[in-house]
Structures are given as C-alpha cells and as structure tokens.
C-alpha cells in the first residue's frame, strides 16, 4: 500500500508543470493553529495528566513520609532512599532482579540467536518454526505461570517425574531458596526467547546478499565460514539492540513472581516490581514505595536511552 502511494507521488512529481514548492505545506495557513489545538489538545492534556504529572508526583512523594489513607505528610528529604538501601528486603530485591536479568538476558539472546540461525539456514517450514517459538511471548503469562506451577509440582509435576526417571536430582523448585530464582529465570527465557528470535530473523534478512556473494568468491562457501565471516559480524549491532530490549523486559518481571512465589521463600525471589507493588499497595507505604519506584525508573530510563542511541545510530535492522 505504501508503495502504491509512493508510485503515484513520484509520477506527479515528475511532471514538468508541477511547482516543486507546492509539495510543501504552506506555513501557518490561517486557522491551522486552531485546527492543531483541536486535534492535538486532548492528547496533550492527557499526556500531561497521565504521564508527566505522575512522574513529577512520584519523585515528590518519594521525598515524603506519606502513607495511603493518612492525611499527614512531612517532607523527609532523602530519608526514604537511605531507608530502602538499609532495608534488607529491598537490597535482596535489587540483587535478585540483577541476578534474574543476568540469567534471562544472555539465555534469551543466545537462545534466540541460535534458533534464528537454525531457521534461516534452510528454506522449509520457516513460518511454522517461527510461530511455535513465538507463541509463549504472546500467551497470557498469568495463565501460563499456573501451568508452570503444575509442571514444577514436587510430586505430580512432569519436571520431577522426568528428572527422576533419567537420574537427575529433583527438588521442590518454587519453595527452595536455592532453585526458585533460576527456575523463574527459565520461565523468563521461555517467554522471551521467541521475541529475541524474531528480532534476529529480521536482522538476518537485512544482511545484503552481496556480502555472501563476495564471501563465496573469496572461498568462504561453507555454512560455518559464512557464519563467521559475514553473518555474525553483520549481526553485531542487532545483537546489541536485542540485549538492551531483553534486559528491559527482564527488569519488569512481575507476573510469575506475584502468582508463583510472592517473593518467597524468605526474600529469595523478591524482585523490584513486586517489592514496589507490596510496599505501595499491600503495606500502603506510599513514600517508601515511591522511592523504590524512582530507583526502578532510573534503571529503566537509562536502558531505554541506551536503546534509543542504538536506534539513532542506525544500528538496527530496518
């Protein structure tokens, strides 16, 4: 559709009698400002009310001792930030989140890359393989978490049944401090793998055929040679991008923790968004929860800005 429009546009632009300046909208037509206010006004007001104002508010609330349901509110400076970093539960939450991300990110990126390369190496059933690997990414995670709980059940779960049959150690995966976080990370990888795969597949498509032809002439005509000399070097920028996007998604882990473990046992699977939710909406400590939110915001904004830089540098695949 876009191509059809483009063709029409080019045809008219090629005519000698068309004034090229006519393609530019006349600046400041009378009434244009009025139209712009009417068109953009509602969105502007709502952006301010639902995004900008709340971000300012969260920073402000983080500097107070406010609790939901109370009228009193005092400015306490950075006391909440000192409080959260002295709080064993928050420090555990931050550490767990970093551990979770450091498992999910490489697992997802390397797994997604391996599957994308394997799919791309042949010509048959590409759409089918892409679809079955992508399915977990879009299936309701809250529902699938319950399925994982059944799979991981200590006595009737398929995981322990299979592990016992082939002589591997079994465990009460979600109730054991040593296994709970890695197991949640496996679910995270399972969910995001197809997403990374799709981004890599698009990156693979954008590698110019010329490079493969040139590699052929230079004698790099085996699959592994072409992989090492052309594919992987050309995929570097896409990989950087996928790393950031997956890290961002991993930082936002919440559904599986809320449904399966509630941060337990102990604080073994406490993660940032879950701590934020608990402090703010279960313990109603708004100021304290807001300080956690600010920490989360700083991490997310930093990652997003790095990602935006990568896109601006045209190191993505389109």
């Amino acid at each position, binding site marked *: 559709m876009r191509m059809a*429009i483009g063709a029409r*546009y080019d045809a008219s632009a090629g005519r000698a009698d068309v004034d090229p300046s*006519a*393609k*530019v*909208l006349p600046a*400041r037509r009378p009434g244009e400002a009025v139209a*712009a206010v*009417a068109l*953009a006004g*509602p*969105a502007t007001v709502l*952006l301010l*009310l*639902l*995004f*900008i104002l*709340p971000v300012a508010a*969260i920073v402000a*609330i983080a500097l107070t001792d406010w609790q939901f349901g109370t009228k009193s509110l005092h400015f306490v400076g950075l006391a909440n930030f000192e409080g959260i970093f002295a709080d064993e539960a928050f420090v555990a939450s931050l550490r767990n989140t970093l551990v979770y991300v450091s498992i999910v990110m490489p697992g997802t990126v390397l*797994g997604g890359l391996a599957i994308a390369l*394997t*799919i791309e*190496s042949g*010509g*048959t059933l590409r759409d089918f393989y892409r679809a*079955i690997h992508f399915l977990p990414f*879009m*299936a*309701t995670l*809250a*529902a*699938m978490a*319950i*399925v994982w709980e*059944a799979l991981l059940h200590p006595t*009737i779960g*398929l995981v322990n*049944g299979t592990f016992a049959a082939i002589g591997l150690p079994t465990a009460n995966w979600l109730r054991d401090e040593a296994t709970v976080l890695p197991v949640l990370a496996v679910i995270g990888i*399972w969910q995001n793998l197809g997403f990374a795969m*799709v*981004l890599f597949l*698009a990156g693979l*498509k954008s590698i110019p055929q010329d490079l493969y032809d040139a590699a*052929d002439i230079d004698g790099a*005509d085996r*699959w592994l040679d072409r992989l090492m000399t052309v594919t992987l070097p050309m995929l570097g920028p896409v990989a950087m991008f996928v790393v950031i996007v997956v890290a961002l998604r991993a930082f*936002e882990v919440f559904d599986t923790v*809320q*449904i399966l473990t509630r941060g337990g046992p102990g604080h073994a699977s406490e993660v940032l*968004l879950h701590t934020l*939710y608990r402090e*703010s*909406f279960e313990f109603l400590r*708004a100021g304290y929860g*807001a300080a956690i939110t600010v920490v989360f*915001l700083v991490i*997310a*904004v930093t990652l*997003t800005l790095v990602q935006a830089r990568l896109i601006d540098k045209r190191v993505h695949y389109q």
Partner: protein
Amino acid sequence: MSRARHPLSWPAAVVRHALLLASGGLMLLPFVWMTSLSLKPPAEIFRTSFSLLPAHWYAIENYGKALTAAALPRYMANGVLVCAAILALQILICAPCAYALAKLEFRGRDLLFGLVLVGLLIPHQVLAVPLFVLGYSLGLLNSYAALIFPFVVSPFGIFLFRQFFRSIPDDIVHAARLDGLSEFAIVWRIMLPMAMPAVIAFSIFSVVSHWNDLFWPLIAVKSPNLMPPALGVAIFRGGEASTEYGPLMAGAVLVILPLVLAFVVAQRWFIEGLTSASLK
C-alpha cells in the same frame, strides 16, 4: 530466499529439523501439558505415571467447572470490553494528535513531540502510585473506568501513527483540502485508512498488552465482577481451586485461547505488531 544458493545437504537438513522440532517441542510443552491436564479427572492428574491423553475423558467436568465456578465468562467479557474501550479511545485521541504532529505547523509542535518521547521513556508500572491516587480522588477506583483511564493516551500510538502519516505525501492532504474536507475528516477518511498497516500493528499490540496485563488490574479493581482475564485466572488459582488442576488448566486454556487462535490466523501481523513497540 537469499541463502538458497547453498541448499543444505540432506543430513544437514535432517539435523536442522531435529533441532527445531526439539526446541519447538520444549516451547510448546507447557501448552501441551495444560491441555492434557484440562482433559483429565483428578485421579489421573495425581497419579505419578504420565500419559498425554486421559484414560477417562473429564473435559466436560473440568471446563464446566471453569466456566461456572470461576466466573470465567465474566472475566473474558470484561477483557473484551476493557480492551475494546482502551483501543477505541487510544485511536480516537492519538490519531488526530499524530496528524497534527506530522502535517501541521504550529507553535509548540516540537515541545509536544518532546512530551511524546518522554512518555515513551517511562515504564507504565512507574505511574502506578500517582495514578492510583488520581483514580481515588476522581472516585474511579474499582470500576471499568479504573481499568481504562491510565491507557487512553498512548505515546507509542502517537509516535507510530506520526511516523506513518509522515510517509503519506502532502499532495494528498492538499487535494483533500481542495475537496473541502475538514482537518478532522482528513484524519478519519484519508490518513487512517491509508495507515491501515500501522493501525493493525498498533491494535494487536494494544489488545495483547491489556488482555495479558496483571499489574494494573491488581491495583485498580477489587470486585471479581470487574476483573479482566489475567487477574481473574490468578484469583481462581488463589481461591478454592488451588489444588484442582483440571478446572484450573481448563481456565488457563480458555484465557489464552482467543489470542492464540488470532495468532494462528494472522501470524505475520502479530509478530510485526508485538515487536514494533521495541523499535520505537
């Protein structure tokens, strides 16, 4: 295809299919297990030997219980209502703004686009506490409105539509104005129909996000009558059915089924819609 000049030798092709079937099988395992348990009676679920198909079919009992005991139809209807309302309002509010940003000259345009970019930076969970306070002070909490209002404007929607509208030639806008169309009519009758690929991609992104969302509904509503599917199925599990895997799995199947069916029908659109959000 681009690499077809080097077709795989047949052993390599066999290895490729074997690897992909193995990894694909692992990805699908939870779906298969879920379906299998949803068909079995409790006695077979709690047996330690495994079989894919039940010896005694128990589908009617399990699905019946999920549909009656758990208010699952209500949760799904809530999901449809909330997703439809959010999407309609998002398009209604974002498309005109995107058109103004793409095609009109006005003071503050760059500032407004800056606002949109700031909005893109912010993960929505960060807004939860202030939006909860806002919802409380407006008396919106524990209502459909509570589930909808934080999402009526989407910075991503504005951004995506603006990108697409910019690629539509100005000549078309001129011609429409000469034909006497108002600016609003240009948005609805010219721009949006031409930007259908962007509209479809955004719609899939929006509906999938909000059908699956657990975080905000958990905060916004307490009444089971208002719960969307993800929250509903979580409550179902936490309640009396916590050990009744049969009905629980049947409920999970029903919650993910609409999206999975749509995905099977429109795979390419889904993949484009769900990945476009990270390429913003």
